């Protein structure tokens, strides 16, 4: 028992000293912590972090507030962490994000409304619209992205006026042996790709919801099940059977095949351009031809910066976002980061003068509508994708029935 008693003494003596040491450490640390409120924490994706450094340094010089750029995985990880951490008093002051997150962010009360003041007029309308939810603006738009029609100029000298003519022209090129596919539309065997198909869908007069430029989407008015939707569903079956839209052609494959010069046309976003340039393809970026009675409206995704509703640095965050990230200099720097058209009109003009591709995508984007940001969009995409792939694969049975069944499910999902 002697061993034990002396052991006990040693433990208590040792731990008393350690506990004191810990108290000392934390006293120092505590002092440091209270001053951290003068730091603005910004969550930013890996692509943009470098280009943000200059702006952050400038803000620091001008205002004496340190900007800490925290690299974070863009997408669900960033969004979910933000939603979970902000109510716990953690999380950043500012976060980069997509406009399609906005519904969920607002629903959870984790973003603060952002007053852009009179600078709002300097941004493109679709960008501001995308950052607005329930008529309140929450984010500073930075960049836009949308799809357009890419034409391989070596294989097709002009873009036909309608989608049917485009198919015919594409088939002619295939028949001549110069190409393998009349047109490439990125898809997926299980989910198809409702995002890439959306311009065609809207052209048939079957957009998802009623949309008004001022008040945004009205999800209670589901337009997808209209007569045009049935026509579109029938067309999908037809295109699928004819092999014009093939669900086996995934985004990767479409990109590789177009870059190899195997198709005269492709629906694509700006993200594929580097591969096409490397493949030595001469391309033109044009509006998507009309397929049905209406003009096609692609979805425009907008990325921007949001301010946390629990930020202890509301004014500094606001200042940084509106006056620094909203500046022409910053918008151009961020354009360099991803090559997407800037949301600020003056920056867009400079960027498109420098790079005609940016201008061309931006032009097509003007005809687009913001990506809906309702929290239920995930389920909407799932339903749309499953039905469209079944239609294209010819496993859906009667197209009208399938489309209407999907509409009913969508109605349940959005609660309209």
């Amino acid at each position, binding site marked *: 028992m002697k061993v034990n008693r002396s052991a006990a003494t040693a*433990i208590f003596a*040792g731990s008393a000293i350690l506990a004191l040491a810990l108290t000392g450490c934390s006293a120092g640390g505590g002092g440091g912590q209270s001053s951290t409120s003068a730091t603005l924490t910004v969550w930013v994706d890996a692509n943009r972090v470098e280009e943000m450094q200059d702006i952050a340094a400038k803000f620091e010089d001008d205002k004496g507030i340190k900007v800490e750029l925290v690299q974070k995985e863009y997408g669900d990880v960033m969004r979910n962490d933000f939603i979970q951490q902000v109510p716990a008093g953690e999380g950043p002051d500012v976060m980069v994000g997509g406009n399609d997150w906005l519904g969920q962010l607002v*629903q959870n009360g984790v973003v603060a409304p952002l007053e852009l003041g009179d600078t709002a007029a300097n941004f493109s309308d679709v960008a501001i619209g995308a950052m607005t939810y329930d008529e309140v603006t929450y984010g500073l738009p930075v960049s836009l992205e949308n799809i357009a029609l890419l034409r391989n100029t070596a294989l097709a000298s002009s873009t036909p006026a309608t989608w049917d003519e485009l198919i015919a022209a594409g088939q002619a090129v295939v028949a001549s042996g110069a190409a393998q596919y009349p047109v490439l539309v990125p898809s997926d065997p299980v989910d198809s790709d409702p995002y890439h198909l959306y311009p065609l869908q809207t052209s048939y007069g079957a957009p998802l919801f009623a949309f008004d430029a001022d008040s945004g989407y009205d999800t209670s008015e589901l337009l997808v099940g209209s007569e045009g939707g049935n026509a579109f569903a029938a067309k999908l079956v037809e295109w699928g059977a004819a092999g014009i839209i093939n*669900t086996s052609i995934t985004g990767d494959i479409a990109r590789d095949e177009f870059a190899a010069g195997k198709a005269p046309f492709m629906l694509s976003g700006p993200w594929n351009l580097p591969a096409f340039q490397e493949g030595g393809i001469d391309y033109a970026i044009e509006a998507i031809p009309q397929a049905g009675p209406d003009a096609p409206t692609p979805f425009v995704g907008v990325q921007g910066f949001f301010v946390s509703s629990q930020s202890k640095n509301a004014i500094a965050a606001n200042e940084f976002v509106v006056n620094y990230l909203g500046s022409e200099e910053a918008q151009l720097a961020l354009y360099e980061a991803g090559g997407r058209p800037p949301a600020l009109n003056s920056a867009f003009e400079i960027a498109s003068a420098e790079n005609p591709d940016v201008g061309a995508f931006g032009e097509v984007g003007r005809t687009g509508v913001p990506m809906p940001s309702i929290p239920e969009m995930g389920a909407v995409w799932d339903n749309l994708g499953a039905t469209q792939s079944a239609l294209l694969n010819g496993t859906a049975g009667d197209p009208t029935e399938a489309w209407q069944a999907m509409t009913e499910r969508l109605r349940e999902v959005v609660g309209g």
Partner: protein
Amino acid sequence: MTTTELQSSSGTDRSRKRQRPIARAAAGAPSTWVVLIKIISLGVLDAVVIYAAFILALNEDWVLAAVALVAATLINWIYIRRGSLPAKYLIPGTVFLLIFQMYAIVYSGYVAFTNYGDGHIGSKEAAVEALINKSLTRVPDSPAYPMVVVEQFGQLSFLVTDPDGEALIGGEDRPLQPADADLEGDRAVAVEGYTTLDFAGVLAEQEQLAAMSVPLTDDPNDGALRTPDGSQAFVYSAKMQYDETADAFIDTATGKIYEDTGDGAFVAADGTQLMPGWKIDVGFENFVRAFTEESIRGPLIAVVLWTFVFAGFTVAATFAVGVFLALILNDWRLRFRRTFRVLVILPYAFPVFLSALIWSGMLNPQFGFINQVLFGGAQIPWLTDPILAKFSILMVSLWLGYPYMFLVATGALQSIPEELVEAAKVDGAGPWAVFRRIKLPLLMVSMAPLLIASFAFNFNNFNLIYMLTRGGPQDITTDMNVGATDILITLVYKVAFGETGGRDFGLASAFSIIIFVLVAVISVISFRRTKTLEELN
């Protein structure tokens, strides 16, 4: 746990202790370095706990502080006294298990009784604050007021210049009134008796300033000035008024009243809710919903059946392949065995989602390697035909999972004494009989629990299903949102995270608990059938 000594000698030990205390002390005394490690570890632990308890007590978190102290005292007591040998060996791992695993489980259990989820994430105060902020909107086409923040006797005011160039001053609940201000250009920058704050000064007060509303006039309906950045103010009007005494929001335009009806949100008479709401306890509501949810109950039988097939096949197949390979590669005559072993575990060395992506590419009907090369260009719909998709899932699952079983079996095989095998062969047993009667039973000793655990893991193997098929292909002719390869957990995910306007963690947790009970019952039953718990020596 009671005081027990080493099992092998517990009977004789006690009597020996009585007879030869000195010898016992010498034999049983731990070596010096063990004592040293023990003292240091306990010392560090105690220091950490005492410090933590101190901080917790400062924060008046009495319960946690007490729990920490009691737990630490218990641990000290166990390690300092003689005996409690099992406890001494079990405590280190158990402490981590309790803190990091049980906490997560308890938390899930707690969440199952709340409405935690999108729209109900934070506290009611935060929700009210967010709603007030959201309801304040800038009056359309109203002018911007250049401004500075001024301070007098610790009270902050806005010094603004109105569109007519007139200087006005006001503060919270103090409507604007004319001020005799110093101008800089046509902008008022200072006023006698007040100190103008520079940007650093503004930042120091930013929490207060961000919440400040300065009424334009005595009539609150004229709106109020607010500033987002301290240098400009805008006229805001509230679309919604919060009545604190009634605990309700009132729509200023329509007069519609939103009340707290106990559902974790402000709800109007017609059922419309204001978002965000807040987190409340809902009792067993999530469990009731879990059992009555039509989108789960409808396809339940088919999905549960497939879940069992998927988990059962995966375990059986990975085990069979893993053990088979381990046996083969245990043959010393095979050359390059080390290299082959590395090759066959390679699937395990890459992130699952990367492999799943590769596989979905290889299974592509038209361009995938499988169809193009192995099947000579046939367009077999591996992932879109309901039956083939199930088959593909099983094959990929086998590919992903067998290296684990292979590794474990390779290790476990070493515990089989060669003499036993030799003896059996001498008795004329063929290779199959040797495997069946000697190797397999001995392998099962250490591997049976792993098979149960593997079954449980695959029962909830959300990632594989979701990355390969997302549960599809879906039979779109039914109105059920369920696919051919959906297992229970992916179905739950769809229902709890997709269908009700955002992610419903409360419902998801209730489902987790139900699934857990199901899997646990299966496991305990199969556990009783194995001999793992018996004394084998």
